C-alpha cells in the first residue's frame, strides 16, 4: 500500500494530511485574487449590510457570511465580470435566507417621530447625514433595499433587478415608492419654524 501512496503523491494526487486534491499554486493564486478583487468592497458591503439589518452585530455577521460564501464560490466567478454586482447578489441572498428571521422584529418599525430606529450608540457609526439615515432606516425593507442599491451604491436598474431577483419594473416601482416615502419622512423631520416659513411662503 505504501507503494500506492508513493505513486499517488508522485502524480500530485495527495496533498497535505487530509488527502485533498488540488493543483499546486492554484489555491494561493485564487486567495490572492479574492484579496485584491473582492476584499476592497468590504466597506461598501458593510455599509449596505448595516442599512439592511439596522444593527452593527447582524451587519458584521451578514458581511462575513457573504464573503465566506463568495470565497467558496469564487472558483466559479468569471474574472473581469461585474464583481461588485456578484458580491451584492450574494449579500442579498444571505440576508434573505439566513438572516430574515433574525432581523425581523417589531423594534425596526419605529417611526421617525419616535426617535431613532436603532440604539443610540449606533449613531456614532455615522459620520454625518443622521437625519437622512434615520429616515432611510424607517423605510420598509423592500423599498429601503432598492433605494440603498440605487442611490447609495449607484447600481443600475438592470444590476438591481439581478441582485434582488425581481423584474426591472418592480425595481422602478420600489425606487419610486422608496424615494416618495423618504421625502415625506424628511419633510416631517424639518424643524417646525422652517415648515411654517414654507407655509407662509405658499400663503
Amino acid at each position, binding site marked *: *500500500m505504501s*507503494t*500506492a*501512496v*508513493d*505513486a*499517488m503523491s508522485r502524480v500530485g*494526487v495527495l496533498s497535505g494530511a*487530509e*488527502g*485533498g*486534491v*488540488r493543483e499546486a499554486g*492554484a*489555491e494561493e493564486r*485564487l*486567495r490572492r485574487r*479574492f484579496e485584491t478583487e473582492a*476584499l476592497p468592497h*468590504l*466597506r*461598501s458591503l*458593510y*455599509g449596505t449590510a*448595516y*442599512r439592511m439589518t439596522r444593527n*452593527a452585530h447582524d*451587519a*458584521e455577521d451578514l*458581511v*462575513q457570511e457573504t*464573503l*465566506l460564501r463568495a*470565497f*467558496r464560490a469564487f*472558483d466559479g466567478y468569471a474574472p473581469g465580470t461585474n464583481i461588485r454586482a456578484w458580491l451584492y447578489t450574494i449579500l442579498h441572498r444571505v440576508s434573505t435566507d439566513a438572516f430574515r428571521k433574525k432581523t425581523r422584529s417589531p423594534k425596526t418599525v419605529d417611526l421617525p417621530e419616535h426617535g431613532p430606529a436603532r440604539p443610540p450608540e449606533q449613531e456614532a*457609526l*455615522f*459620520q454625518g*447625514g443622521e437625519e*437622512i*439615515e434615520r429616515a*432611510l432606516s424607517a423605510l420598509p425593507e423592500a423599498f429601503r433595499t432598492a*433605494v440603498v442599491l*440605487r*442611490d*447609495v451604491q*449607484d447600481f*443600475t*436598474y438592470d444590476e438591481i433587478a439581478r441582485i434582488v431577483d425581481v423584474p*426591472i419594473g418592480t425595481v*422602478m*416601482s420600489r*425606487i*419610486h415608492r422608496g*424615494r*416618495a416615502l*423618504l*421625502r415625506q419622512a*424628511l419633510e416631517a423631520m424639518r424643524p417646525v419654524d422652517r415648515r411654517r416659513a414654507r407655509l407662509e411662503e405658499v400663503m
Partner: protein
Amino acid sequence: VSCNPEQVTGFVDGALDAPAAEAVQGHLSACAVCRGQAAAERSLRARLLELEAPWPGEALRGRIRAALAAEPHPLDEPSIPAPWLLALAAGAGLIGALTLRAQVRTH
C-alpha cells in the same frame, strides 16, 4: 399625456428606453408637479450618494481575513470522486507490484 410618477423616477435614473424617455420629457415641459418630483428626486439622490458608509473599524477587516484564512479553500475539496481515487490507488498498486516483479526477475 397624464402623469405617471413611476416613469418620472425611471426618467431621472436614465432607465427608460428612448420612446418612453421622450414621452416623459414632453410631459415634464407641460407639468409642474412632475417637474417638481424630478427635481426633488435628483436632489434626494445627490444627498444619498454623498452618505458616508457606516464602518465599525478595521478590526472587522482583520476578523474577516482570519475567517477566510481558516476557510478550507474550494480547490481543497476533493474534486476527484471517491471511486476514481480507488481506481487510481489500485492502478498504482498494480504498477508497484509489476515493478517489484520486474525487479525480482532481473535479480
